[in-house]
């Protein structure tokens, strides 16, 4: 039981990270219908920026952990958002209205570029970071098996809930969110009604990148080590999560992220670590065969 609880906690933590990345995929897909393959690498850039900003803060003497993390979070979000905006501007905007595969190939190119850019700029070696906030709570010590909840895990889950709440409010209550949902339904009509479509799409990328950088910071804190290649695997998993939850649906992305995180953790814990990705992908395939539009997605209606 304690083992189960422990895995549940680990799975939720991992799922939160996947969910935050998945939102970036699902938003972009919802609004312009493209798979933003470079999003995983934007997440990786976010993790690197968080590391750089943290080290810079340490270098200038800000070592009070909560303050440092808050500054890192905000600065990394802003800088990663700039990356997200630039990627959209260079690689996707000129292809707006082009056929479906063109932005996909452009995104794959961008993904290769970002990976190798970071590798050249920061070096190919893994970047470890000593634990920023060590320690945590322990439960059930009497039974012999201890359930550990580290501060970092609490922080990740707490921050995810807070950010998700804020983000949901942003999409449902503000005019930007309304513009976004309008563009999602019908871009041409939204433009006719005075919504600046290009700006809305840009802001979608900016928001997706900012959320990805939060995930990047969490990844850095949780695993304590990053390299230029983390974006690919995390990106594929997060995209899987987005599809599992029903692409285009924001709660679906979060649910899919949690599910993928849980499946992966439990599979590693009870069966084999090697095949955890196979388990995640197989469940994706099975879910899609029975629910072709994901768990919470709207069924695609074909009009003739």
């Amino acid at each position: 039981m304690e083992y189960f609880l422990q895995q549940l906690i680990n799975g939720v933590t991992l799922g939160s990270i996947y969910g935050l990345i998945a939102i970036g995929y699902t938003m972009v897909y919802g609004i312009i219908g493209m798979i933003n393959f470079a999003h995983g690498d934007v997440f990786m850039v976010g993790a690197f920026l968080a590391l750089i900003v943290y080290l810079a803060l340490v270098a200038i003497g800000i070592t009070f952990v909560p303050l440092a993390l808050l500054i890192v979070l905000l600065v990394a979000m802003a800088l990663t958002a700039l990356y997200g905006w630039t990627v959209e501007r260079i690689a996707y905007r000129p292809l707006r209205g082009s056929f479906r595969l063109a932005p996909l190939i452009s995104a794959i190119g961008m993904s290769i570029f970002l990976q190798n850019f970071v590798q050249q700029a920061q070096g190919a070696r893994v970047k470890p970071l000593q634990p920023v906030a060590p320690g945590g709570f322990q439960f059930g010590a009497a039974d012999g098996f201890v359930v550990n909840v580290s501060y970092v895990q609490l922080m990740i889950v707490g921050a995810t809930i807070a950010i998700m709440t804020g983000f949901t409010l942003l999409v449902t209550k503000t005019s930007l969110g309304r513009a976004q949902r309008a563009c999602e339904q019908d871009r041409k009509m939204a433009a006719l009604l005075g919504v600046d479509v290009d700006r809305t799409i840009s802001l979608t990328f900016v928001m997706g990148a900012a959320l990805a950088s939060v995930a990047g910071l969490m990844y850095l804190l949780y695993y304590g080590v990053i390299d230029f290649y983390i974006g690919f695997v995390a990106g594929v998993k997060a995209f899987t999560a987005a599809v599992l939850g029903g692409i285009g649906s924001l709660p679906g992305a979060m649910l899919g992220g949690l599910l993928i995180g849980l499946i992966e953790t439990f599979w590693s814990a009870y069966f084999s670590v090697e095949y955890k990705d196979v388990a995640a992908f197989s469940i994706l395939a099975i879910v899609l065969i029975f629910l072709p539009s994901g768990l919470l997605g709207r069924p695609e209606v074909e009009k003739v």
Partner: protein
Amino acid sequence: MAAPASPAAAPSPLIAAVKDAGIAALIALGLALPMLGLVTTQTQAGMGLVPHWDRVAIAVVAVFAGRLLLNLTLWRPGRRKSALAVPPKVEATLARTAKYLGPLAILFAIVMPLLPFTERYAIDLGILVLTYVMLGWGLNIVVGLAGLLDLGYVAFYAVGAYSYALLAQNFGLSFWICLPLAGILAAFWGVLLGFPVLRLRGDYLAIVTLAFGEIIRIVLLNWYWFTGGPNGISGIPRPTFFGIDFDRGPDGFAATFGLSYSPLHRILFLYYLILALALITNLVTIRLRRLPIGRAWEALREDEIACRSLGINTVNTKLTAFALGAMFAGFAGSFFATRQGFISPESFVFMESALILAIVVLGGMGSQFGVAVAAVVMIGGFELFREFSDYRMITFGLVMVLIMVWRPRGLVSSRSPTVFLKEKKAISGALVQEGHG
């Protein structure tokens, strides 16, 4: 070209250009300052930062100068937006000459290794390029003709390679028996994987094929006793000239045909082997397009609902496309295994699938000639810059983005329809649908 409207307004484009370049430089500063300027380095006391301000300065100046230059030349206000596009006249001429370009290219491919100045390196490069041409043509059946987006194509390449390696090593079968077997096995896997997922459409299909590609790679990586895991399989039998080895012995190729022994014989044989395989792929594709099944593929790509209402069995049609594409990947895979003599899961990563898909799309989906051109440009170009290995992947990614932005319909953007009234003529690629899976 565009003369300034009035003297008073004349300086404004320049100021606007400088202002725009300034903004771009500012953004570049924001992007480069942390990433290029502060390098995370492992030190005695843990992680530290080493400043590299020179790199930031170079990046910012380069962006400013580049943007300014572009603003003053290509992006000058008043200049037609499609200045970079190839004029329709040139395009039409190209389309007309394309009829002769194809046979000419094949002729060149046949005589290239025999030319006196051709070095071994060029033949090796030719083999590599032709492997990708073949893979591109194979994937073109799935993506270009049937309109199914397949992101896990490399899985079938892997199945072919491992089929050959395992059959040849464990049962001692010769290459010429293994080649069709590998193709059949790959096609079988194509059907097996395709059957449950082909009801999915568009990007759902894409992600599931990607997932299958990863699953096959992970299984190959972890199934130690069968596939050798990450160590792969080495010592795969080399190809023979229909049973005659390419070695120095009395029964070797050179001795049998009364030639002096040269290691080049095997390379030449491999070159012609892959050339033949690639041409077979091309021929089969061209012929299939004229058969009912080929027409059904293209009809499916254009409009699936219309197909269904006309009584085409969409599942079977998609499955044949999937299986045929997989079969050619299987052939290419078994060729790859015999050429390398060593295979491991490292060779079958997602990047390979993306590269093959990029070749198909960059070349112009559905255009056989375009795919070949793209393979030569991408793979050949990539290999030629081997000396600048640090920057070549960066450039590779950027080139992919730039080609797409420049020509979203691919390098060869005209298509020849399979069915035509009166006379055969090329049409713009923009008129061809891409399918929704």
